[in-house]
């Protein structure tokens, strides 16, 4: 179909793949923000002493954790319009990824908060602090570092999962690659290029996660020593 040399060909497909990669990053960032918001609210709600507060959030988490993200994407894409909810493909993809990863993030948040020694809460009460103050000033700052390694891993999983939205017509990196294959052929070059670009996008996250894992545990001790 074409006789370009490898370099020429790569130059030709680079702009389309670059645009696709940017869309992938965009989907990942929007979904990450959404997942963090949903995950924090859900994780905290699940710590409520009242069962009727916990119930809807437990149902949501179980529903999204027990089914496939791709099935969820297709479900939202095909079924929501039938019941009168019309979102564009980008929003549908970002919404489903937010809900899907939000369910996992909520587990991370919940278990991190529970991992804080109960004596910390008691000390806050003994100093007559309000519940919200104890939570914000005492519990969360200690729970947050506990969350980081798991959140880092989910960030990487989320970046990979953005490839799924290619199947609902969002022209991110994978879909851009598939379109180029349809147009030019040469699947080897194109899919290897796509693969490599994903790897390059993932590497900063891989390095960050490596760094977080090595630091895990020594958070408070480090503060003064490095002064």
């Amino acid at each position, binding site marked *: 179909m074409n006789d370009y040399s490898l370099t020429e060909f790569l130059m030709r497909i680079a702009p389309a793949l670059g645009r696709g990669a940017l869309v992938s990053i965009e989907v990942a960032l929007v979904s990450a923000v959404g997942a963090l918001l949903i995950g924090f609210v859900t994780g905290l709600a699940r710590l409520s002493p009242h069962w009727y507060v916990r119930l809807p959030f437990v149902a949501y988490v179980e529903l999204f954790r027990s089914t496939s993200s791709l099935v969820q994407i297709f479900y939202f894409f095909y079924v929501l319009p039938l019941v009168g909810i019309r979102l564009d493909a980008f929003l549908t993809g970002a919404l489903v990824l937010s809900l899907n990863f939000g369910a996992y993030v909520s587990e991370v948040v919940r278990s991190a908060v529970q991992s804080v020694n109960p004596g910390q809460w008691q000390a806050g009460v003994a100093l007559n602090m309000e519940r919200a103050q104890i939570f914000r000033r005492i519990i969360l700052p200690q729970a947050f570092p506990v969350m980081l390694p798991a959140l880092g891993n989910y960030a990487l999983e989320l970046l990979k999962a953005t490839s799924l939205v290619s199947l609902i017509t969002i022209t991110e990196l994978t879909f851009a*690659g598939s379109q180029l294959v349809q147009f030019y052929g040469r699947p080897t070059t194109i899919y290897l290029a796509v693969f490599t670009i*994903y790897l390059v996008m993932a590497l900063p996250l891989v390095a960050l996660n490596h760094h977080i894992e090595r630091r895990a545990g020594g958070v408070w001790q480090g503060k003064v020593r490095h002064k």
Partner: protein
Amino acid sequence: MNFDLNSINVILPLLLQGLKVTVIASTGAVIVAIALGLLIAIVRRSAGRALRLAIDTVVTVVRSTPLLVQLYLLFYVLPLYGPAMSPMTTGILGLGIHYCAYLSEVFRAGIDAVPKGQWEAAIALQFNRLQTWRRLIIPQVVRIVLPQVGNYFISIYKHSSLLATITVVEILGTTLNYAGETFRYFEAFTLLGIIYFIVGFSLSRTVGYLERRLA
């Protein structure tokens, strides 16, 4: 939008047929993943620096790139250079390779968790290398890693729906085909969601039970 209850009679048998394919693919993939993951973990343990670095690099690359793209490479690219495989074989291999990267880490941690005294006892009892692994280490590692392997099996089950993109007619593929012909998206996808949930939820309850039993 009204739900056509009669169509359930048609859809349900189709989806259960698809579910069978999903289960076969997931089971095949987890076997591949366990075999490769264990192999990687064991080889890595006795490998020199260079080989270890090479293994770690490959594992990181496999873990850091999307399964979907890996499946495309296996399905669209590999046959150009080697023998063609059926979509099902390609899918099982792709899922298995993707998850062997995760499982090799699980096995590595599991092997590290076996007390050093066990290795020393094996030497004291004149066990050879193979005997030590087979009779002493692996049985203990299995106990340690079983819940995590179970959790990855659930991930594989969920990710197996991606095989629909390389023409494997598992449960999602069945649904897409049926809905595409009949336009009964609402019924087909709702039923798909329910079945997916029931199986996934039962699996995660089972693994949770296993986790508590072995803890």
